[in-house]
């Protein structure tokens, strides 16, 4: 039993890191401005295509291309914030949900027309790592390391740099932050950009080991919701832990029941946690 369980657990946990980084983007945006970004999925998909297009056209190493994709994600997020979100930032939730969803429709619409929905695949491997009974592709390990690196840098940015401190101040109390002279509009745009940057990076990492289409982001967006609720909405580190929990769950469940039951379990758990503890398993605020 354990010779099946252990490899699939490791597999699930490594994937969990990537889920975590995707969810972190959603969580960051929620934490700073109480906006649920429904364009999260398509941005993950754009990250996938970013890596794909750079790699197939220039042959650049996907991990170096990730920097380009991250920067593009940051800029795209700031543009989305400026165009679609800023005007309704203080409106009821329905407005921001619909505004970000309309961005989702625009990206998917243009993406489907330009990129079609044929599955793509990046022809890139790093071989596999074998430790005892466990064999995992190096690309998964690299993705986990990249996630940890990005998380570390994000926290360094949030706690050490001045704009990062501004972000935390705005998240804490926007009005007070404005009174202290913090340019809140710019900081909100930056936060939104960081959130979409994380989504684009997650997409790029996923593209190194799974085939994808422009619609692939949707399932990761739904997983990100589940993870955010597991880890507490608005808590980026909680999102990483939530990702690991979900990844572990996905790794272990198939040993006990058919794989098709995994989503039932995931979404059942999601609704249950929302009901019992809406602040999340790791959330501190009640």
């Amino acid at each position, binding site marked *: 039993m354990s010779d099946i369980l252990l490899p699939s657990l490791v597999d699930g946990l490594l994937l969990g890191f990537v889920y975590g980084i995707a969810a972190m983007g959603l969580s960051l945006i929620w934490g700073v401005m109480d906006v649920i970004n429904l364009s999260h999925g398509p941005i993950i998909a754009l990250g996938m295509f970013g890596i794909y297009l750079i790699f197939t056209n220039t042959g650049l190493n996907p991990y170096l291309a990730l920097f380009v994709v991250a920067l593009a994600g940051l800029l795209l997020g700031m543009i989305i914030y400026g165009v679609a979100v800023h005007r309704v930032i203080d409106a009821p939730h329905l407005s921001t949900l*619909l505004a970000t969803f309309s961005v989702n429709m625009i990206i998917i619409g243009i993406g489907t027309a330009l990129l079609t929905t044929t599955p793509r695949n990046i022809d890139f491997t790093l071989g596999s790592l074998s430790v005892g009974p466990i064999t995992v592709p190096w690309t998964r390990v690299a993705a986990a390391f990249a996630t940890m690196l990005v998380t570390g840098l994000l926290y360094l940015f949030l706690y050490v740099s001045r704009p990062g401190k501004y972000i935390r101040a705005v998240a804490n109390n926007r009005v007070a932050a404005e009174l202290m002279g913090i340019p809140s509009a710019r900081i909100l745009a930056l936060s939104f950009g960081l959130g979409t940057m994380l989504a684009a990076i997650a997409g790029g990492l996923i593209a190194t080991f799974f085939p994808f289409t422009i619609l692939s982001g949707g399932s990761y967006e739904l997983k990100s*919701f589940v993870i955010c609720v597991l880890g507490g909405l608005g808590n980026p580190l909680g999102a990483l832990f939530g990702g690991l929990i979900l990844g572990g769950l996905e790794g272990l469940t198939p040993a006990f029941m058919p794989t098709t039951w995994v989503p039932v379990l995931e979404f059942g758990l999601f609704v249950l946690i929302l009901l019992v503890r809406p602040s999340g398993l790791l959330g501190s605020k009640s």
Partner: protein
Amino acid sequence: MRALRSPGLWLALALTAAAGAWPYFTGSASNREVAFTILLSVALASSLNILLGYTGYVSFGHIVFYGLGGYMGIYLLSERGVSLWLAVLAGGAIAGLLALLLGASILRLRGAYFALATIGVNEAARAFINNFQPFGGPIGMTLNFRLYDHYGGAARALWMVYGVMLGLTLLVILVSYLVKNSKFGLGLLAIRENEDAAEIMGVTAPQAKTWAYVLSAIFPGMIGVLFFFKNGNIEPHDAFRLHLSIEMIVMVMLGGYGTVLGPVLGAAGYQRLRGMLLVSPIFKNIQLAVAGGLLLIIVLFVPAGAVGWLRHRVPVLRKVLE
């Protein structure tokens, strides 16, 4: 029954009835299909409006009631051999029951948490049905063609379903109007504006919200049965399509949420626009992007929707546009 003499109600009903009568005059099956889609959207949007527009709770996964009702109805029709009428009622009943159960729990959540929970409920239901063998699992169920013989053959059955759809749509509009002009409806509107204040003023919010939820779930359940009866088969992917759910919200917003006429105009307008974009050579491929751009403009600049905007700008129309 002074409420029944209001011109606003009759305007909404007359517009729907006139549009619904159009295929009967032309006698063409393709016109009927177009009109069916529009009526379906009008009815779905109007029933969602009872929760979204009057009560202010954003149900992102409202399609779960349509899917579940459809499944229940098709199961009864094909496996248990009950009549279409009973199946439609059963579809509505199961959707209402689910809403009643959910209402006691997830309606405690507010704002975005409620919206997220409804997405979760829809996805959980879809995943569950995917594994539920009595309902055919991932393959779904297909109606035996001979079933249509009970209703005078397939061609007549489709016209009959269309007639029922038209009647149901008119009923939804009437209910939507009656709710809005009742004491119950005023309680809902108060909850929308400020739930805590509404409770202090004597509105039993949990109860009122739950009944609004149930009411807005029953009709999608019935409509699901009609649609999938006409369609001939049902699959989890078609029944619980989150996208359709969000389109319902878009229609309500387009026309004006919280108004009776708004969802009618919004749904009809949205479907007509989509139809036109789909056949236009330039926009065919990017119709989703165009619809998204339109939604963004509405959300940013006309948040009250078409009817809300007209009521605000032209005070005379307030008597006519409910």
